[in-house]
């Protein structure tokens, strides 16, 4: 099995690159992107010359003008930035199987071996050149390591037009002499570490996990992982590359039609709606479907269904809709339709797949959380709990920790299965995960037409 390798490339903000493309004469001038200085908006990006004057992203534009009066202020062209981001993603996908592109940073999974670049250094150079050519800028810094965070720190340490490689197993040694400011620490934690005389990552790495957790709680565990070259709890750890969760094998959407209908327009609307929703979920999972199934449930009759294996595997709503329409056209309906079910199966990672870089958690974690919540509902709140160290424990041992609801503790961010508000949805996981698979095998969602359909279409569905 290949050792995981993650490449991090840092480059000028894409909004700044777009501004330089539109105004080549500003290449050597201080440029601030965000809008006119009169606007009460923050700085989105600043060129190196402007940064040298003390301007930084997030600063109010008015303050930026005071610090750098000679700078040119440019409004951000969000459409062009989005196009540039898509183009960068597309090009990097030709070089690496898993890519994440942000406005100032890109990540590529270099685990394994590339056919055209058998040498890992050559592979990293090819990625760096690809970014340089597209952005027409040499100011690209690249770091390669076995974890996401170490790769980013290596990129920062490399500086423009350089590649910094951290060999597998040498992450801790690479981090040890660096100041603690390279780690993403909260100011309070950083201040406390400084007060304890810990001024470099190596000093923190030498502490035990227990000691750090006693001092800082869960943050201490993150710090413990990070100081040793990991990515912190709940994110990605060495050995998992960019850590993509397994996709489900089958997805489904079902729309109930009140009272049954034979109206083709109503059916077309329901299938269209299902296709778009299902397409969103395919995009969310970064998958393409090998087969599409449309089933119409009939009043007082057996359901009628068709299955198709499309030549081009759909990975979005726009691609899924023509396939679903073709299925609907081929359907011979003998009775009013009470529900429409659109399913996709044979899911596999699609090209150009984006990973959820900023969101922790995985399908297994949510499954465990769901079961824990059901156990609490059945056996009481004390049946399943999670402990948390208290900040001010006092002298009594029982005050050192407090019990918390494990599900509520996990629900800090948006759940993976949570969907857009305003539509009554019911998400059910059908069947257990297969052996050896971390992901759900299938998930089907049901939407009642009454809750999810615009009022103007309701009469059609009730007919």
């Amino acid at each position: 099995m290949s050792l995981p390798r993650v490449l991090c490339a840092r480059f000028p903000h894409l909004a700044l690159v777009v501004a330089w493309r539109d105004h080549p004469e500003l290449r050597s001038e201080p440029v601030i992107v965000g809008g006119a200085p009169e606007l009460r908006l923050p700085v989105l990006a600043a060129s190196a010359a402007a940064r040298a004057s003390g301007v930084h992203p997030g600063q109010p534009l008015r303050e930026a003008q005071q610090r750098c009066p000679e700078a040119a202020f440019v409004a951000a062209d969000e459409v062009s930035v989005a196009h540039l981001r898509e183009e960068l993603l597309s090009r990097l996908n030709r070089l690496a199987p898993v890519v994440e592109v942000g406005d100032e940073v890109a990540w590529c999974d270099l685990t394994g071996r590339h056919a055209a670049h058998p040498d890992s250094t050559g592979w990293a150079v090819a990625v760096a050149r690809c970014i340089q050519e597209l952005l027409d800028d040499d100011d690209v810094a690249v770091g390669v390591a076995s974890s996401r965070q170490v790769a980013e720190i290596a990129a920062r340490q490399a500086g423009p037009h350089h590649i910094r490689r951290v060999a597998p197993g040498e992450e801790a040694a690479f981090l040890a002499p660096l100041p603690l400011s390279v780690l993403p620490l909260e100011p309070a934690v950083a201040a406390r570490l400084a007060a304890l005389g810990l001024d470099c990552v190596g000093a923190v790495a030498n502490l035990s996990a227990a000691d750090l957790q006693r001092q800082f709680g869960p943050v201490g565990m993150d710090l413990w992982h990070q100081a040793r070259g990991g990515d912190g709890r709940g994110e990605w750890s060495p050995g998992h590359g960019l850590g993509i969760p397994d996709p489900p094998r089958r997805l489904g959407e079902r729309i109930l039609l009140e009272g049954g209908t034979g109206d083709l327009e109503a059916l077309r609307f329901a299938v269209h709606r299902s296709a778009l929703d299902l397409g969103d979920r395919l995009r969310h999972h970064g998958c393409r479907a090998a087969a599409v199934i449309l089933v119409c449930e009939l009043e007082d009759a057996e359901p009628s269904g068709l299955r198709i294996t499309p030549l081009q595997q759909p990975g979005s709503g726009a691609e899924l809709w023509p396939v679903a329409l073709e299925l609907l056209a081929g359907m011979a309906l003998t009775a009013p339709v009470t529900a429409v079910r659109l399913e996709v199966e044979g899911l596999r990672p699609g090209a150009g797949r984006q990973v959820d870089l900023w969101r922790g958690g995985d399908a297994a974690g949510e499954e465990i959380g769901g079961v824990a919540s059901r156990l609490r509902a059945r056996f009481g709140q004390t049946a399943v709990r999670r402990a948390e160290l208290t900040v001010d424990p006092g002298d009594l041992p029982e005050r050192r920790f407090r019990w918390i609801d494990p599900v509520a503790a996990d629900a800090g961010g948006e759940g993976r299965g949570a969907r857009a508000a305003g539509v009554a949805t019911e998400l059910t996981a059908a069947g257990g995960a297969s052996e050896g698979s971390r992901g759900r095998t299938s998930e089907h969602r049901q939407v009642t037409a009454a809750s999810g359909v615009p009022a103007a279409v309701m009469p059609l569905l009730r007919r």
Partner: protein
Amino acid sequence: MPTPLSEALATLRRRHGEAVIRSGDALGGVEAWPTGLPVLDHRLTPGGLPVGRVSLLAAASGASGRLTLLQALVAVASRERTAVYLDLVGSLDPGFLADLGADLSALLVLRSPSGRWGEGFSMARSLVVAGAPWLAIALPAAGAGSGPAGGSRPRSDLGWEHRLSTLVESVAARRAVCLVSAAAPLPAALGYASSLTLECAADGWEEAHGDVLGLRTHLTVVKSKVSTPGETAALLLRYPRPFAAAEAVGRPAVVDLTATRKVLDVPAVASDIPAVAG
């Protein structure tokens, strides 16, 4: 020409699937979860605790260190993955687990409201089926109290052996690690379900300046389906203390005394052990 045996095999395969009958050479070895403790990973077990099997820390009686060792291993597991701790003893101190280095945010603590073993096993099984990869079970002595209010195990806890067998099946199906701590008298069903049984016997308290630093314990592999039984090792289970110098330098909670004594050539001196549980 089909023989009666081949016909019977074909019938079984047709009725229950291809996987029900396999040749012996297709079974392969047992995957192991490395504990990070060399004494366990290299001397007592082949590579660590077996995955998809039930391992058992058993003790004769009194203070043996089985719970401390169980919790030290839970602490290691919680730093890597989600761990579940089924506390049927009712004495878990999360603060002690944190001192051992556990990541409390990755640890789910289960307690059976009625104190019944069967109920606890069912709860644990649900989480294993959902994907919990590491399960620790702390069992009281077979006749001792385990409910929230103490007292003896309810008489209605019949059929816990059946729940245990379904838990064992789920652990095998989901490739989870399951470690059970139990005191004598060991129920027969538990001993039967275990693939690896380590017997803990106390050697004495580790003391310094009149203060108890830890417990010396003797581990013996009394049953093993994954390696050769009979191996032994001596351990020091060090009790961590918040803000002590040893914690600041990251001393491990489990120290292999066998290796240390070989290096230092220092004989072990056992202290008297009071007859207390735990």
